[in-house]
């Protein structure tokens, strides 16, 4: 319960004590040294325009509030500018920690629809942004090959990419999001 006068009480059931360990294991190894100074929030371009507070996300992660962090859109407001990582006085890889939490969120079925679409394009074409008719035309007009010499023009290369996306589990991961 929250209002202006009472403290927010964290329920024991909401705490997952393994959450921080998972983040540490995935590479944000200094996250436990956070002193909540707020430098990350102060330098954040998204934070200056919205209620997104990097410091708060890190605090919640340290408290083990896994579900709350992963289900929130907050972690998707980061533009990965890396300023917080550069400025953190504890040298915590803040941006990396957010990327790690995003990976976890997707595994738990939290993915924005636009991001699912981008992923589907990658699976189908090898490009998150495939060529379209307008740019085909523009390429010709500019004297470039109409289709660039990428997976767009090379069936074997595209098949390799598709195979990789199957082996890493990406295809399955994205397909599993469809019903979410």
């Amino acid at each position: 319960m929250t209002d202006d006068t009472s403290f927010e009480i964290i329920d024991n059931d909401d705490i997952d004590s393994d959450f921080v360990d998972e983040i540490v294991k995935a590479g944000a190894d200094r996250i436990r040294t956070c002193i909540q100074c707020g430098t990350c929030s102060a330098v954040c371009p998204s934070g200056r325009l919205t209620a997104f507070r990097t410091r708060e996300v890190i605090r919640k992660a340290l408290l083990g509030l896994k579900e709350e962090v992963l289900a929130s859109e907050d972690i998707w407001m980061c533009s990965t500018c890396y300023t917080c990582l550069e400025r953190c006085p504890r040298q915590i890889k803040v941006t990396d920690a957010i990327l790690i939490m995003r990976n976890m969120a997707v595994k738990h079925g939290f993915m924005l629809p636009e991001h699912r679409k981008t992923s589907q394009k990658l699976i189908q074409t090898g490009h998150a942004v495939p060529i379209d008719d307008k740019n085909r035309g523009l390429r010709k007009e500019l004297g470039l090959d109409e289709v660039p010499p990428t997976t767009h023009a090379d069936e074997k290369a595209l098949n390799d990419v598709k195979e990789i996306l199957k082996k890493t589990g990406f295809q399955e991961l994205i397909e599993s999001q469809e019903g979410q």
Partner: protein
Amino acid sequence: MPNRFPNIEASIRVVLPKLGIFLDDLEGASCCPAPGVIRSFDELTWLALATRNLALAEMSGHDLITGCNGCYSTFKEALTEIREHPGRLRELQKVFKDMDIKFKGKVEARHVIEAIADLGPDKIRSVVTKKLEGIKVGVHYGCHLLKPSKNRPWKKTQNHTFLDELVEATGALSTPYKDKNLCCGAGGGVRAGQVELSIDIAKEKLNNLLDAGVDCIVNVCSFCHLQYETAQDMMNEELGEKKYNIPVLYYTQLLGLAMGLDPSELGLDTHVVDTKPLLDKIYG
């Protein structure tokens, strides 16, 4: 870049050989893949596709070069991850099993502007035939070109000047503006997933650039470029007036103009924001 900004690609392909930098196509390349989106969804997938692209370059015997800060970030970070954690390469070899992808991790990833910066402003001045005098430029470096600074080749970790110097070598003036080092707002999947926030961040920068009275923005990233090109139109539509009209140029387009190349050869007649006011000022 080839799928979204053929105009920038054309400018890179025409300008670089004139500086003595010759390009080979990375045949069969895929999306880098994008560090903001794909890396946010599944790190192993991001690393595997990045490594495949790096391996294609390594097998061809050349370093990899890209004109996009996002791709640059992906390749620099992937190389760092593999070099700092040798176990990752073994993990990837399982993914690449039965494919003819060999990778030792010896290849380097470079940015077009890094190669140009290595030549230095003096070299640029030596190829300039049409000095862009009186042109006020708002320089935008972009986050992933510079950060994380420990994995980047620049001499300084902040307050960079190399791009400003390269811009000024064309005869143009790099004009200071508020919050010059602020993010464009496109990265991290924000442009796709949180459009309003993304445009709000761009708006802040564009307002500052308007206040500084620049004739154009110069950037070195296809995603920053997209952001400035498209955000202005979107903001004008919302406002119902044409307030935001700052032409957005990639560095090799600006340099191409200073080398006396035809604007159409540099794709400058195919921009979202009309480049004509800038061209009129140059040729006026």
